[in-house]
């Protein structure tokens, strides 16, 4: 299909290419764009035009999804700056970080043994979220000083943490299902 997606995600929303973004402006521009391209605006159009609208709307959603979340935004920005990520390859993390990860994982595993597993899981997740936001602050510094390799390392660490958060959520689901 001939719709051109040549602009980068920042350009789509008319935003400067920068890690720090005005999230409320992003949300506002996103709504303006969706009001124009959303397939519901083409409910009476031909099948072809509706398909086109779905593709456009999907592309804009993808752009929003990438920019909305700091971790994805950082990774995208680094990629725009020529940093390559190979998720398949094993990455070497600093031992201190790995140690901490193992401890957190153990804490997650212990949740089931607690008197109120939901409360203790909730508490644990809060502390992981807090840790995540501190690490994102650091990531922002690294990007602004153009220390891209260090920023890449930071992104990989944050992806680790993201997996951990996902595991916590799965555990919560398991606990809820067992009720």
């Amino acid at each position, binding site marked *: *299909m*001939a*719709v*051109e997606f040549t602009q980068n995600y920042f*350009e*789509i*929303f*008319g*935003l*400067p290419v920068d890690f720090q973004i005005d999230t409320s402006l992003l*949300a506002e*521009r996103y*709504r*303006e*764009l*969706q*009001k*124009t*391209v*959303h*397939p*519901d*605006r083409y*409910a*009476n*159009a*031909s*099948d*072809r*035009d509706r398909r*086109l*609208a*779905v*593709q*456009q*709307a*999907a*592309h804009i*959603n*993808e752009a*929003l*999804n990438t920019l909305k979340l700091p971790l994805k935004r950082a990774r995208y920005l680094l990629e725009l700056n020529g940093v390559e990520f190979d998720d398949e390859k094993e990455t070497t993390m600093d031992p201190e970080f790995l140690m901490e990860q193992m401890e957190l994982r153990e804490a997650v595993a212990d949740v089931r043994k607690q008197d109120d597993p*939901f409360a203790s899981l*909730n508490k644990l*997740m809060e502390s992981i979220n807090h840790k995540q936001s501190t690490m994102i602050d650091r990531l922002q510094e690294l990007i602004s000083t153009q220390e891209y390799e260090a920023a890449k390392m930071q992104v990989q660490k944050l992806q680790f943490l993201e997996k951990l958060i996902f595991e916590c*959520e*799965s555990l*919560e*689901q398991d606990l*809820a299902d067992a*009720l």
Partner: protein
Amino acid sequence: MALLQISEPGQSTKPHERRFAAGIDLGTTNSLVATVRSGQTDTLPDEQGEHLLPSVVRYLDNEQAPVVGKQAIQSAADDPLNTISSVKRFMGRGVEDIKHLGDRLPYEFVQTDTSVPRIRTVAGDKSPIEVSAEILHVLKQRAEKTLGDELKGVVITVPAYFDDAQRQATKDAGKLAGLNVMRLLNEPTAAAVAYGLDKSAEGITAVFDLGGGTFDISILRLNKGVFEVLSTAGDTALGGDDFDRAIAQWIMSQANIGDDASHGVIRRLLHDARTAKEALADVESVELNIDLQDGGVWQGQLDREQLNKLIDPLIQKTLITSRRALRDAKVTIDEVKAVVMVGGSTRTLRVREKIEEFFGQPAMVDIDPDKVVAVGAAIQADVLAGNKPDDELLLLDVIPLSLGLETMGGLVEKIIPRNTTIPVARAQDFTTFKDGQTGMTVHVLQGERELVSDCRSLGQFSLQGIPAMVAGAARIRVTFQVDADGLLSVTAEEETRHVEASIQIKPSYGLTDSEIESMLKDSIEHAKDDVELRNVREQQVEADRVMDALQIALQQDGDLLTAEEVTTIEKALLTLHKVRDGEDHHKIKNAIDKLNDATTEFAARRMNNSIKQALAGHQVDEFD
């Protein structure tokens, strides 16, 4: 430049012509239809003045039309095998799931070789899709009788937490009932539309929707007519029916009724349980008189305290789910500006009490919780039908469950995570692992778990026509697209040679296209239809739509085209116009395709142009 104008009296769509559209709430317990008339949105009553149509279908023998609604309920206890209620619970499910679902289902399911379960009735074996179509058909007739005209399109609501198979089944039911389903709309989103109608509503809203058989919680951000769903969570097998069941089980244990009680006894017990539950919304305690199989009567009492004890664990489940929805939305409880209550089961006092305690604020209950979903759907239907061209209303929804692919070792790799805004498209690259391999199978799943066996299988997509190459040389890009209805479609292309691979879909729990086609043939709606004639009519409708849309496009944006391009388009337009009234649907389709080809570039330019215009006024200069 001169642009071709084709319009004949009575053929072109007049801009002010009102297109009748309706919103349908296809519920587990009750169904409703609503429309917008003279600016007022209301649910429509039947001839007896009843708005709620009980979602119960009783099949009769001797080719008599089935009975739907209240009359069917009355026969439930006497004719349980042919009277089907809560059929929504079986939509998009396999025979195995259904065994898990109801502990004791009063129907006989037929073992078939197809993936869709069928219930044995005197009128033949019926799939849940066909049963739902009967309900929709009654509502369609009700709307058309009230409006005095044919319905141009409908919006049917579904639980936000419905998966792809359940959504597809609902859409198929609409098709079978002879409806043009413009959109499947999530029930909580519909409710938010009904409440946010005055547009003054802004900010974060939580919609708590507990129906007869399903539970949804959606967190939305409302902003100037845009309803943006941030997250949704739920349980498609949790609702008021479970309250009834818990009460019925309690009665059984109190009255010493064994698990071997007959279908009829269970039905009656569930009915008594429900009556008691509803009465307890007004009074502190109710008397129970239960007929026993030996002719005796068991007398007992159920008070609110006992009821709460029975249903608290179920309500607790909804609270855990609500917490997850908030977290997914990245919203704290304090940020929630309004809590909307939807669904008949929110009438149970304990539910309201617990929810208000959880959110720390009174819940909104101004609109009848049974009707609010249909009202919201009608508003959206009216907008989609084109009756409000300047309306700002836009609904941005999310996919409720992650979509993934089966990888090595029976694991699932997520490609679209839950709560991603739809429409969404994601591509995934595959390669061949054998020399000369020309086909491969992709197994698509939906759910949050890591193991294939714990997720819901949506279907097997087998790709054929991959050019033969050495192992690992082919690069097949498979694109998964979820449209605004939350429905998945899959396309594949071999990237190095740009060969489009063909895809055969084997839905795990849905009907194949040919099954739908044969059901359509058999359905009442199309009984007298000539298939050929219907094909012609379908193509004519699409031809008109294409021509109308193109004329408007040419008027608005004709200046985006060169004179040469206009000539090409006009030629194709003229050809379509000539064959449109013919009787060969292939010819019409062919002419539509040709015209579409001729205007693809134009359509893309127009869309790019409208995107530019949407952001015109604030371009990069304002940042320096």
